[in-house]
């Protein structure tokens, strides 16, 4: 027959006994502490429930009042506190709020090694949480204390030292203080220790060298062959996490130093590192996830490394892996990030992704994933895959099977869907956020590239709704550049499309004003190509360009001459093309334009440029001068 449960076995009962033990002392303390520890160990729910009931302050009170001679009580207190702090931020907070920290620190100087060990273990748990207090490395005595921890012959004490660094070292100054104090050397020595020492040392090591070329140059690298050699050696360690951490350190060393330096230049070592990371990716836990991000960071911005990764079949492997069911968000993010990097430059990588039976569908589906980071990674991956002009031209992104939400809308066969997508972009181009504005205008500019007249008209009808002129004069030069590129594409193609610029009235004036006002060469290049394209039109259009570029009443140097003197070859090219278009001899007004250009000093400037260092400029200058001279030489 079941009886009623005794209150002593319920949390409330245990708490009662804990409180009275804390007050009365004696043997009862040890017993109740053991019982509590056994209840909460590895059980998050129970930890939270005892924290709520106020168990932590009672334990800390027992610790603070315990005589330093009762070693087993000290050990039980520290172990219980450590257990509360392990893996639960609320536990760390409760432990710190109850004032346990200084008492635990005191335990580190106890004569009994077991007490020291229990104290260090509890403190390590605290420092593994984000809720732990930041350690102040700027205090000399703190550094001394930290070094004394790293010098101890106790795995948990050295582990505590390493955890403090991993948790608290954030700035370049802090990294420098630690490196200068000889901490890196101590950590390297610890690599010879147990697995746990090795792993915590590698983690702290990575923290100290992260994005700090100064520290790396001074303390790590080929000149310090032992350090470098140890790290390389550890990439072959039998424990996956050790191999991963060694790869992370080597990646940080490579990424923080310029490509011209001698760090990790050997193709053999680079390949080896990629292979180690790829093997780790097979682990479907945290190690595998981190290995993916490390691989991605290792190959980022370096095409040679991307080629090596490609040759190691990374793309096939990731395309295969992404097809596994129920992958965690972190894994998907890592796969898309790495694939995105690989496809940023290399067409063969894009080919494999596009030819993989499901890859594109999986990436496309991930655009609506619930986790933001996955959506972003999928989007970047898709963007880089779709850089393939070859596959774009084949319409691979326009078939029903591989339609992507965004691209689908823009390339949809239905005009209304296209317009809806355009409206979204147009809306975004009004955004207060200049990055959003930039990307929207950029997309519109590319969309306008070589579209047929019907599409152009539809797009323009939409564009007219928003003040294109304002985008051309945007406060962000990158937005201006893209907006002018858009206008350039708009007036390219069939000659009638130049009319768009005239129906909008002020547009040509705005472009002309930017040519006189802007300073960024890319903005000037795009603005000048707008003029060039308009100048390839009918007589009145050429005259309109002349009005913008040559003002006879103005005594200042003509804008054409100023821009022809630019150091930027692509800008000089754009200007000379405009002059070529203005001086084509067949036009009725050609002679008058040549005279005006000569009076403005353009022809003599061109004569100075017949040996321009840029071949393209030189050849166009010849054409322009040749055309000007068909009307006779005005040089005398």
């Amino acid at each position, binding site marked *: 027959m079941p009886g009623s449960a005794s209150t002593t076995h319920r949390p409330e009962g245990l708490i009662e006994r804990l409180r009275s033990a804390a007050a009365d002392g004696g043997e009862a303390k040890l017993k109740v502490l053991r019982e509590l520890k056994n209840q909460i160990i590895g059980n998050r729910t129970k930890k939270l429930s005892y924290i709520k009931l106020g168990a932590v302050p009672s334990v800390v009170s027992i610790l603070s009042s315990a005589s330093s001679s009762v070693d087993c009580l000290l050990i039980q207190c520290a172990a219980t506190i450590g257990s509360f702090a392990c893996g639960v931020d609320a536990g760390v907070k409760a432990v710190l709020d109850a004032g346990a920290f200084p008492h635990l620190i005191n335990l580190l100087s106890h004569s009994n090694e077991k007490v020291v060990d229990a104290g260090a273990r509890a403190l390590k748990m605290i420092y593994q949480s984000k809720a732990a207090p930041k350690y102040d490395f700027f205090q000399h005595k703190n550094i001394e204390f930290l070094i004394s921890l790293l010098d101890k012959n106790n795995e948990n004490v050295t582990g505590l030292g390493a955890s403090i660094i991993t948790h608290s070292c954030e700035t370049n100054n802090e990294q420098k203080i630690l490196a200068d104090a000889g901490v890196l050397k101590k950590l390297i020595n610890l690599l010879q220790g147990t697995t746990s020492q090795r792993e915590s040392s590698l983690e702290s090591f990575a923290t100290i060298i992260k994005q700090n070329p100064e520290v790396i140059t001074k303390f790590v690298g080929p000149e310090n062959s032992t350090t470098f050699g140890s790290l390389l050696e550890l990439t072959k360690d039998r424990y996956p996490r050790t191999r991963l951490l060694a790869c992370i350190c080597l990646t940080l060393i490579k990424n923080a130093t310029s490509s011209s330096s001698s760090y990790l230049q050997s193709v053999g070592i680079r390949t080896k590192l990629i292979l180690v990371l790829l093997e780790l990716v097979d682990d479907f836990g945290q190690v595998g996830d981190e290995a993916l991000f490390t691989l991605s960071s290792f190959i980022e911005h370096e095409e040679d490394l991307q080629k090596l990764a490609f040759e190691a079949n990374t793309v096939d492997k990731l395309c295969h892996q992404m097809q596994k069911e129920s992958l965690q968000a972190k894994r998907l993010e890592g796969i898309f990030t790495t694939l995105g990097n690989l496809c940023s430059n290399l067409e063969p990588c894009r080919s494999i992704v596009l030819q993989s039976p499901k890859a594109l569908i999986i990436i496309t589906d991930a655009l609506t994933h619930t986790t933001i980071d996955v959506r972003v990674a999928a989007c970047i991956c898709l*963007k880089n895959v779709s850089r393939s002009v070859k596959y774009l*031209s*084949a*319409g691979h992104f326009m078939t029903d099977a591989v339609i992507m939400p965004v691209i689908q809308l823009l390339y949809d066969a239905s005009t209304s869907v296209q317009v809806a997508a355009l409206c979204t972009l147009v809306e975004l181009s009004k955004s207060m956020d200049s990055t959003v504005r930039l990307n929207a205008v950029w997309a519109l500019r590319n969309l306008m590239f070589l579209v047929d007249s019907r599409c152009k008209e539809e797009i323009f009808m939409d564009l007219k709704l928003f003040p294109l002129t304002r985008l051309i004069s945007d406060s962000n030069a990158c937005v201006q550049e893209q907006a002018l590129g858009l206008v350039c*594409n708009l007036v390219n*193609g069939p000659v009638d499309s130049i009319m768009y610029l005239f129906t909008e009235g002020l547009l040509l004036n705005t472009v002309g004003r930017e040519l006189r006002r802007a300073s960024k060469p890319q903005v000037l290049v795009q603005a000048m190509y707008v003029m060039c394209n308009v100048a390839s039109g009918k007589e009145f259009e*050429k005259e309109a360009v002349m009005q913008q570029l040559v003002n006879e009443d103005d005594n200042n140097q003509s804008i054409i001459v100023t821009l022809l003197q630019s150091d930027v070859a692509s800008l000089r090219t754009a200007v000379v*093309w405009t002059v070529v278009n203005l001086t084509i001899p067949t036009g009725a007004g050609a002679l008058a334009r040549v005279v005006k250009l000569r009076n403005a000093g353009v022809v003599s400037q061109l*004569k100075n440029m017949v040996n321009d260092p840029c071949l393209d400029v030189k050849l166009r200058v010849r054409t322009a001068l040749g055309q000007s001279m068909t009307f006779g030489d005005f040089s005398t």
Partner: protein
Amino acid sequence: MPVRMVESPAPSNSSGANYGQTCLQPCSLLSVGQAFSGTQNVSSPQKDEAWRVNVRIQGCDLDHGYLCGTMEALNVPMADTPVVTFWEGEIVDTKNHTFFTNKWKATSEVDIEHWTKFPSFSPLLSQVEVDGGKSLDLSNYQYIFMRWKEQYFVNVGADCGLTIAGFYYVCFSCVDGSINGYYYDPNSSPFQKLELKTTNEGRSGFSFSSYELQ
């Protein structure tokens, strides 16, 4: 005062082991969006025949010696509509690609036989015979040599009865944008000549467009 124009020098030999490392300079007439039109002579001993051809540059990556575009053949006898193909080009920049093809059934003898059909190739011949042109610096040369290889049909099926097995040896003039080419396919009539000129689509001048991938 008229000034004397300095003629472009013949391509120089770059010195020592550090050869051929300079990319070609961009040429605005060979940039994305540019269009060309002309003919391809497909005459056989039985019949004189030429197809009208339009070409459009769709992508250009000088760092990797890469160019691509579409080619439209207009009056192809066995096709109801113009036939559009997508091609990819290798730019002979001596860094990414040399004059030797080393694939597509083209031996170095076949290469030289085709390249020598372009008058602008003659100053380069002796060096190309030695090393495929690896030690030449073409960065200031007024002609750009390329190989264009059609990759797929854009608007008709692969079963349309036409072949894209061969490839073109191409010479582009930076001066006026004219393109000459010779089609090579061991199974087709030899030396089918491609002649293209830059088109201005009814404009009185040159017009440019562009896109930029992020």
